[in-house]
């Protein structure tokens, strides 16, 4: 496998693996993962529509195309484990258990949003599901994830923290320092680089001297992994290895998952830095479509799939209606200083 346990490469492009080897799974395992991926896809599409209608403002960064990474990785966690993510985090929050209603209401800037209209798309937090937030300034959130994991080790409560970031964040100091300290202090954190090949509009080969981000672990004596993110089950399995390592030995892992975003960096990005052909090529291998096919292939009934998809559609429609009908945000003063 081309991406597994990678070595340094000087190639200018990350080539995609055409030889898919599905990881063994069962309909019982895969169906809920597919459902999450589909719900995230539909939620992102609904938010894009609302954005184009002017109902959602600011920046809106969609994860369409990358759903397998957050869904597979989060599936390897226990509920008490922590997740820290970037501004592209609607999917991660949903996968961790945050409802579509509070997410959508937050995008709409409503009082019923998960952070009461104070955060918006980039700052979803949910204490109930241990979702420690979406961070708009990347890099600095890597030490924060390490900090949550540090607390776990300090207290001995065996919780693990997952930290998601793009390959674009791998050049900033916060990532470097978080990586260094996690390795030095043996902090039970799994650092997941979602390498979607573009740091905003800059392709990997123009932003990294060595395109394999996972290699950074070597200098710190840290465990590492690297694989493509097309198969949600594979993501789950490989992240589970790292999570298990963290839980049992406190050892952190740097994992790089190669993926691709189908949309622009944000809604305002027309994506002129890449060809239509390239995007189409990746869409052919859409992890969501592949997951659906795989589900049918391993015997999940079509009727059940239809019912599930209808259910997802209803869930997202309900979330949009909830957001539309919710009262506007009305309090910006209460959460500055805790009295």
């Amino acid at each position, binding site marked *: 496998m081309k991406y597994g346990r990678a070595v340094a490469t000087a190639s200018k492009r990350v080539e995609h693996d055409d030889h898919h080897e599905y990881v063994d799974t069962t309909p019982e395992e895969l169906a809920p993962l597919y459902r999450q991926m589909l719900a995230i896809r539909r939620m992102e599409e609904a938010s894009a529509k609302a954005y184009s209608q002017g109902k959602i403002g600011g920046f809106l960064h969609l994860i369409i195309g990358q759903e397998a990474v957050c869904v597979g990785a989060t599936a390897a966690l226990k509920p008490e484990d922590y997740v820290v993510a970037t501004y592209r985090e609607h999917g991660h929050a949903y996968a961790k258990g945050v409802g579509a209603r509070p997410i959508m209401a937050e995008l709409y800037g409503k009082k019923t*949003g998960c*952070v009461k209209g104070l955060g918006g798309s980039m700052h979803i937090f949910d204490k109930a599901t241990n979702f420690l937030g979406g961070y708009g300034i990347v890099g600095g959130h890597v030490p924060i994830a390490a900090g949550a994991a540090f607390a776990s080790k300090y207290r001995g409560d065996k919780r693990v923290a997952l930290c998601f970031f793009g390959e674009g964040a791998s050049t900033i100091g916060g990532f470097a320092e978080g990586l260094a300290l996690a390795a030095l202090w043996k902090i039970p954190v799994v650092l997941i680089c979602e390498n979607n090949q573009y740091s905003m509009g800059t392709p990997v080969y123009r932003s990294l001297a060595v395109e394999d981000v996972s290699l950074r672990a070597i200098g710190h004596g840290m465990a590492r992994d690297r694989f493509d993110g097309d198969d949600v089950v594979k993501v789950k399995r490989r992240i589970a290895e790292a999570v298990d390592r963290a839980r049992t030995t406190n050892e952190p892992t740097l994992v790089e998952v190669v993926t691709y975003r189908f949309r622009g960096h944000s809604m305002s990005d027309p994506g002129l830095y890449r060809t239509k052909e390239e995007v189409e090529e990746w869409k052919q291998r859409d992890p969501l479509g592949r997951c659906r096919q795989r589900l049918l292939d391993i015997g999940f009934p079509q009727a059940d799939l239809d019912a599930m998809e209808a259910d997802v559609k209803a869930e997202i429609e309900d979330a949009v209606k909830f957001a539309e009908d919710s009262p506007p945000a009305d309090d910006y003063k209460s959460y500055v200083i805790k009295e």
Partner: protein
Amino acid sequence: MAVISYREALNQAMREEMERDENVFIMGEEVGHYNGAYKVTQGLLQRFSERRVIDAPIAEMGFAGIGIGAAMVGLRPIIEFMTFNFSLVAIDQIVNNAAKIYQMSGGQYHIPIVFRGPGGPAVQVGSQHSQSLESYYAHVPGLKVVMPSTAADAKGLLKSAIRDDNPVVFIEGETLYNTTWEVPDVAPGSPSELIPIGKADVKRTGKDITLIAWSKMVWTCLDASKVLAEQGIECEVVDPRTLRPLDVETLATSVKKTGRCVIVEVGWPVAGFGAEVAYQMQKHCMDVLDAPIERVTSDDVPMPYAKNLELEVQPQVADVVAAVKRALYME
């Protein structure tokens, strides 16, 4: 009343709070085996072990962030910056994360963390190590900024800071560590062991003019007050102790009494915190002011190394005396 040093007061505060609360830990460069670059954490490693007194490598952004993450999930970190000059490489963590998470999370996560260490000019350490950065932090909603001037304030305020549920930027006077002050003998656990954050303190009473200063400049103002008292001028020295939140009421009460105000800070003049204090004082005391509010600051230059130049740059007793006389129309 025991007379102890500012350094010892800080050490006692941390020791007592770490005894009291298992969730309190200290992390920073040289805080453990080295016993602190300024010996403020002396003996803490021995008492609390490496689990709670954690030597960090040179990675302020990293360990400040680890503190924030730990605080999110319930610990109470004390993050020591060897000096506040180094906090600038962690300012993303302090401003973008510590100060914001309570708001960004809609009140779900609060950050009970203390960022502490020495600030302000030291002695002949050059421009990168001699800065007063309090106005950087005082500018940011979501932070509290504390700058004690005496050992008693240092102890009572640091304990309050550690117990506060918000990020507190606690800037110690780098040249104050050896100063001594009477610190009340209060048993840990007694309510009087805490000095509330956000409460100013009148360090000297006087009827003619109000001097507002914090940290090291309180001492300069007290010295200037002695000189002026010999000339029949009675200064009132008010130490806000906390810059954010600022105890405007106590400050304004004094200015209303005297009708004149001089603000003394060791920071730079442009957008220095004294400018905000001056705004607040003119706003609340307009009708009783007899003279423009004076500010005494360091010169608007990076700190030079040579001792004579370094002294010239910083506010001295003579500068304060001159400002007082200007405000009294005496020169």
